[in-house]
């Protein structure tokens, strides 16, 4: 019960804040512009995919950490009320992820709707894109929560959030390429699939690529990926791993929150 009340007031607060408006407008303008530059629904989705994969993890992890650091005194005040720590935690988490996810979904779906993209064949594609974007949002806000609760120092926590984003979004792919180059004489398909699973951004990228049937662009590995991820089993495994990426950081954050001194 109290969780819902906390969510209600968090939403009232967040919806009026500037950053969520900017975030929504950002996706709105980009989607609108891509349509105006003559893209069809499918082309727009492909272009948006790269934006989603870079921007959502970055914004979710940085804003998530900032949100917790800024709510510090507010959390103290709420904890002096007859509220359990678990309901406050769920209230805070939902109070951030709901506006972030809806801002993103709105920013993409509304321009799609008025450009007629939702009635075409691209409708399923854009819905899948929104789904993956929401998954990335909840995963990276959970990571942000576990970092911000673990590190008392705001600068340290924000720095670590940025480094983690950089690692997953940029460095990780470089490392995989380096491994492929280093062991180019060995059959690497399976290890590479395993490594891909360990990065939520890569996982999201592959889910999207397979869904849009552009894995051929990835050459030989693409075919291997197609065989694994394209199967029902592969899809289930990758979604399962993605959910682990949500569950593990979130439960770490939750446990820290229960024991933390405010």
């Amino acid at each position, binding site marked *: 019960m109290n969780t819902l009340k906390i969510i209600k007031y968090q939403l009232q607060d967040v919806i009026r804040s500037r950053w969520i408006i900017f975030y929504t407008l950002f996706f709105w303008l980009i989607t609108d512009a891509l349509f105006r530059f003559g893209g069809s629904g499918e082309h727009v989705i492909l272009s948006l995919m790269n934006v989603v994969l870079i921007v959502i993890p970055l914004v979710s992890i940085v804003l998530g950490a900032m949100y917790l650091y800024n709510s510090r005194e507010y959390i103290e005040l709420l904890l002096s009320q007859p509220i359990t720590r678990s309901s406050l935690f769920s209230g805070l988490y939902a109070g951030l992820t709901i506006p972030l996810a809806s801002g993103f979904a709105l920013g993409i779906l509304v321009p799609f709707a008025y450009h007629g993209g939702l009635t075409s064949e691209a409708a399923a594609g854009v819905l899948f894109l929104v789904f993956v974007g929401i998954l990335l949002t909840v995963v990276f806000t959970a990571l942000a929560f576990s970092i911000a609760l673990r590190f008392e120092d705001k600068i340290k926590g924000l720095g670590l959030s940025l480094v983690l984003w950089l690692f997953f979004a940029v460095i990780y792919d470089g490392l995989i390429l380096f491994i492929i180059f280093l062991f180019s004489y060995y059959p690497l398909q399976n290890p590479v699939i395993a490594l891909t699973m360990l990065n939520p951004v890569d996982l999201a990228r592959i889910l999207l690529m397979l869904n849009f049937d552009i894995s051929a662009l990835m050459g030989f590995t693409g075919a291997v990926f197609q065989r694994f991820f394209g199967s029902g089993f592969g899809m289930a495994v990758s979604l399962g791993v993605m959910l682990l990426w949500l569950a593990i950081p979130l439960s770490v954050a939750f446990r820290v929150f229960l*024991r933390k001194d*405010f």
Partner: protein
Amino acid sequence: MITISNLQKSYGRLNVLKSIELEIGDGAVTAVLGPNGAGKTTLIKAILGLVKPDSGSIHVNGTRLNGNSEYRRDIGYMPQTARYPENLTVQEIIDMVKDIRGNGPGTDEELIGSFRLGSELGKKFKTLSGGNRQKVSAVVAFLFNPGIIFLDEPTAGLDPISSSKLKDKIIAEREKGKTVILTSHILSEVQELADRVVYILEGRIAFDKPMQYLLDHTGETTLERAVAQMIQRSESLQADEKESATQVNNEKATHFTNGREAAGVKPATEANA
């Protein structure tokens, strides 16, 4: 009624509270004093459940604190610095706390009037001045007629009129039999309000005396001087204890060396004497 026994808390290597024993009865204003970093706020936060003690127990109105939250229904808290969601208006903040507490019978909104907060109710929290934020925090602390009220530096940042209104409120609540626990660095204010002074020094209770006793016993007219004298006394008492302890040790040592002398060993304590 708050009973604290053997409360210990450390942050890493820093021992903030060292076996605190304290009982706070109803219907009195207790001031928790001490230098910065002595552990006052940590003590209050431990009672509120914000800080988890390493060992020891806290009972509030007979309930032992154990991660439960219901006992806080009878507690009002005004922190040193209050921050609410920035984009909520003052009225929304008050409604939120009411909502979370579940509208109990008879909320106490007297302070909104006496602080003249009426014109601020529609403003967003982020646009309020520091003093007005402090006032909102005071309103929330008294809102539910709690039996126990914690005030952490309540008048810091308040203008003289609001500050005296708040003091009137504190006195009125004490008359109603409420328990008020406050910290402050303004000792004249403490002297005006408190019935009892608990002085914390480096995580221990240095002394815990009724206000009148402090003034009578030290023969001072102001609390500031009385406290200073009490601390000097306890320091010299400690020094005496140390001295007598070292004397005992020296005596033991002398016995020991005498014994060794008898055995033909050269004494080494002469240089120390």
